[in-house]
């Protein structure tokens, strides 16, 4: 989790919209590093951190000038270099994101320029963890021990007696229950909104209330019931999805 290298450095990800067939003009701009060749529709440069070039971090360019919001994301190479190709004509905010970092200040610019960026090391592990995908948070879920199966029901350990194994419980809290419709472990599900906090006395109460919001009340309450409300509700509160 401390490695800053993100995905293979050859992946282009374009969030929202992307001009797939766009072509950049061939009027390459001069750059400090001759390997960074850009045209009038590109951005390029070097990302540098406290210890020199930052390899394997993301450079994000985003604009609201187009009819739809548009962002394009690339990864730096081993020498911290990047090229964001084929950007639609617009003004962009450009910044650096990566493991072990916090977001750099956004730079306002337009295609056709060399923009060198400075990565910002996270001041703490907790700050860095805010950028990790949900799985790292979700993995801290307090899953009932194998010995708690078969469940003994509401008058016992709270686990549904119909569940004969830990695997059956996991099937529901993962792919075929909660994760069917949304993630768990993301920011919204590891924090408690003020509204919910006001209406409940415990983390279990918060989750009992939370799963009744939205169009899927029936599915969510049913799935929690399938697991057994006691431990299922307890897992999502301060003892569960919150960082330990």
């Amino acid at each position: 989790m401390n490695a800053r290298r993100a995905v293979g450095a050859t992946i282009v990800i374009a969030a929202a919209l992307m001009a797939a067939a766009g072509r950049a003009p061939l009027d390459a701009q001069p750059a400090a590093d001759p390997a960074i060749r850009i045209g009038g529709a590109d951005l390029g440069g070097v990302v540098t951190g406290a210890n020199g070039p930052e390899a394997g971090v993301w450079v994000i360019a985003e604009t609201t000038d187009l009819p739809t919001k548009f962002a394009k994301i690339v990864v730096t190479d081993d020498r911290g270099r990047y090229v964001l190709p084929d950007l639609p004509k617009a003004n962009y905010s450009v910044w650096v994101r990566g493991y072990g970092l916090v977001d750099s200040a956004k730079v306002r610019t337009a295609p056709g320029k060399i923009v060198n960026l400075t990565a910002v090391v996270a001041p703490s592990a907790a700050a860095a963890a805010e950028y990790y995908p949900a799985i790292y948070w979700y993995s801290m879920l307090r899953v009932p021990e194998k010995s708690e199966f078969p469940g003994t029901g509401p008058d016992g350990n709270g686990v549904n007696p119909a569940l004969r194994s830990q695997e059956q419980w996991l099937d529901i809290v993962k792919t075929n229950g909660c994760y069917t419709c949304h993630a768990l472990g993301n920011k919204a599900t590891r924090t408690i909104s003020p509204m919910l906090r006001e209406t409940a006395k415990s983390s279990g109460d918060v989750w009992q209330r939370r799963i009744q919001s939205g169009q899927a009340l029936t599915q969510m309450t049913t799935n929690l019931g399938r697991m057994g409300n006691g431990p299922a509700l307890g897992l999502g509160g301060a003892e569960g999805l919150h960082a330990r």
Partner: protein
Amino acid sequence: MHDEVSTDKRNPRLNPNGLIYGATEESTDLFPVLDPVHHKATQVKMLVRDPATPSSKQNPMLPSPFWGDERIWDSQTSMHNPMFDEKGRVWFTSRVRPPANPDFCKKGSDHPSAKLTPIDASNRHLSMYDPKTGKITLISTCFPTHHLVFAEDANNTLWTSAGGPQSGVIGWLNRKLFDETGDEVRSQGWTALVLDTNGNGRRDEYVEPNEPVDPTKDKRVNAAFYGVAVNSNDGTVWGSVLGFPGYVIRLDPGSNPPATALAEIFEPPLPGYGPRGMDIDRHGVAWTPLASGHLASFDRKKCKGPLNGPTATGKHCPEGWTLYPFPGPQLANVTETGSAEASYYAWVDQFDTFGLGRDVPIATGNANESLLALVNGRFVNLRVPYPLGFYTKWMDGRIDDPAAGWKGRGLFATVSTRAPFHMEGGKGTTSKVVKFQLRPDPLAR
């Protein structure tokens, strides 16, 4: 948003640089249309045949921490998935009427499928949007629909899944016949899922799921598909079945599917369990993500024992399965292989639309906030780092220009969570289309 479609799954050259269509499920009856060249998004209203069709707005719900008393969900059509046909028309699984089925679906009907397997209700059906004319055609199916896929056959058969296993049927539309006649009754069919338990190689009289096995008869199983795919080599239809431990089923339609279709059922071996979406590669190998935190392949060619008869009831071919643990940490208190990943669907890049090779299976990384491509036994984790919270339910790949190298091809996926306001940006954050492209090096332009 549930899903998008950018091209014909059977031919990724269809619709180059063209519009991309989405399905909004419980959110709204307006399906989004994205122009990825000019960066414009529009909406088209999906229709229902019966104004009494229920809406998600009627669902019981308490106020939301994000939206208060505002019931932002309002969908009668419950559009679940879109799919292009070879004519550039977009087909949806969508709701066109209330669940109670018309009489031709029920007992006493002379419909070939209803005579054998009558159905009283279906909660989602089919529709088609023709971008050239703007016309929407609704099709009331007796069988419930969820996902959909076109076969590579003369009828361009549209096979559907049901979602949960409760209906116990798989349904289809003879699209050629429907195009020619517009007759939705004659053009649709469905079948029960029946195992060749007596092992004589054909479908016979069968016992129901709640009846004991009779060695002289076949056996119906209480199952229906979630994911659905067609083996291009032999026309067999494959599907995943929800439940614990869940199944993958192969259905051979035979010459008269309502009466001749025969199923084979395969259960993943522990530590694998819990399939959801499913696809198949050009070699006939099925791929499905498992709740156990694995991507699983099932290759029927590896099975050593008989594939029908009294022992072919699900556990008879563990050797056909291979489990690949997903990337990421395992859950606390869980000691088996696999990770905490809770992947929703798998899609196979049969035509190398991305650049990692033909037949590369790609799973949705719903907890990794990524796509997870399995290349030579190792995962390539294509994370979407912004906005935080990428969660998708499907993808497809399109080749816009086969002569343009990496620039001419790519994958499309959507932000598919029912709660996009859970993402970075919070309230007001809407779904998005994400395009993935694979450059030869980080400085390529």
